């Protein structure tokens, strides 16, 4: 795993695919107060998704189940001591506002699925998206 990462970064950053920049294109960049933004299919989806609460009982049960599944005995590796320092403060920024993020993730999923350029995004990422939308958002998924 480490060797793969090493190789991958030896040459520097990758060019961006749509999945990398989707949130930036839709959410960042300059706007003018007055002007309407285009009514985009994805933007409508995002507002729908934003209403869905992610931290549901279902999610908790999933965590509990995951712990049950996990066998930690075979893994004697040390944790990183530096991570345990600074436990007290400073990291609060990473608090997520779950629902909106889930919505973005949904968008991500929509747009990343068949983008050639995005294929080299971590293998794990698409799977994560799919799992999440299946479990936390039973409503309008088309699976």
């Amino acid at each position, binding site marked *: *795993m*480490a060797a793969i990462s*090493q190789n991958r*970064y030896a040459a*520097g*950053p*990758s*060019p961006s695919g*749509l999945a*990398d*920049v989707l949130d*930036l*294109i*839709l*959410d*960042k*960049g*300059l*706007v*003018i*107060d*007055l*002007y*309407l*933004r*285009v*009514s*985009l*299919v994805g933007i409508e989806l995002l507002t729908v998704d934003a209403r869905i609460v992610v931290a549901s009982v279902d999610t*908790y*049960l*999933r*965590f*509990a*189940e*995951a*712990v*049950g599944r*996990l066998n*930690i005995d075979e893994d004697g*590796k040390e*944790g*990183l001591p530096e*991570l*345990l320092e*600074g*436990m007290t403060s400073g990291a*609060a*920024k*990473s608090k*997520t506002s779950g629902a909106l*993020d889930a919505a973005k993730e949904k968008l*991500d999923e929509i747009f990343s699925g068949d983008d050639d350029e995005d294929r080299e*995004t*971590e293998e*794990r*990422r698409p799977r*994560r998206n799919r*799992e*999440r939308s299946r479990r936390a958002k039973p409503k309008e998924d088309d699976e």
Partner: protein
Amino acid sequence: MISGEASPTTRPARDGGASSVYVYGIVRRWAHGIVKTGGVAAAAPVRMIAGEGACAVVSDVPAVWRDAGRTDLQAHDRVLHELMAVETVIPMRFGVVMASDAEVRERLLERHTDEFSSLFELLRDRVQMSVKAYYVEEALLREVLRRLPNLKKRSDAVELLPVERSQQERIALGRDVAAAVEEQRELDHHVLVQRLAGVAEDVRVEPPVGDKHVLNLQLLVDSARRTELDAIVRRLAEEHGDRFAFRYVGPLPPYSFTDFALSEE
């Protein structure tokens, strides 16, 4: 596809209606041929509207344009990338449409000259780079259970009970695990940001998206210091490759650092 001169067909009556002006971004100068590909709305020719010290890069879209989608998002980003390769660019968010060239000139270029010139200063010779990190498989949960072995004990105990009679225990356990996971994520996030942010002129910390996401950091970096950032990311990937998968991309149009609304005043 290349444009710049006023082509007689730039104001087509698409859908039988009038057209509006889609704005990609602002550059100081615009040279003919700077953007080689088509824009949004079926690869409409990209052209520019010149103002005092700033030019708006635009293309025409139908006045009623309801079916924007994936290819339009890509076109928006691609046009900005092409601009970025030769000029300092202030990117607009996707979907800014104005009524006419005159409006672009008056309400955008003339009214906001000062904002644009300070943004050009801020962004000159700088690029946006993006670093995201994801937990590798179960790395996050493993870390949590290593730190809080009691959670694993509780889990083992609850596993022995029939599911229908231990629902409350399972929910309570899951809630505690979720809280511990969140705490771990914050710790990891903090460490990664500290390692990366030093090389940047400015950073934007975006909230993680999804269970396995630990970091979404946007950095505004001097072009001259790009290799330093490359080296830091490389070292992080070497040191933490067993726990995190990194996604390092760029250079990007500096969307994150032009993220505000121009007021109409």
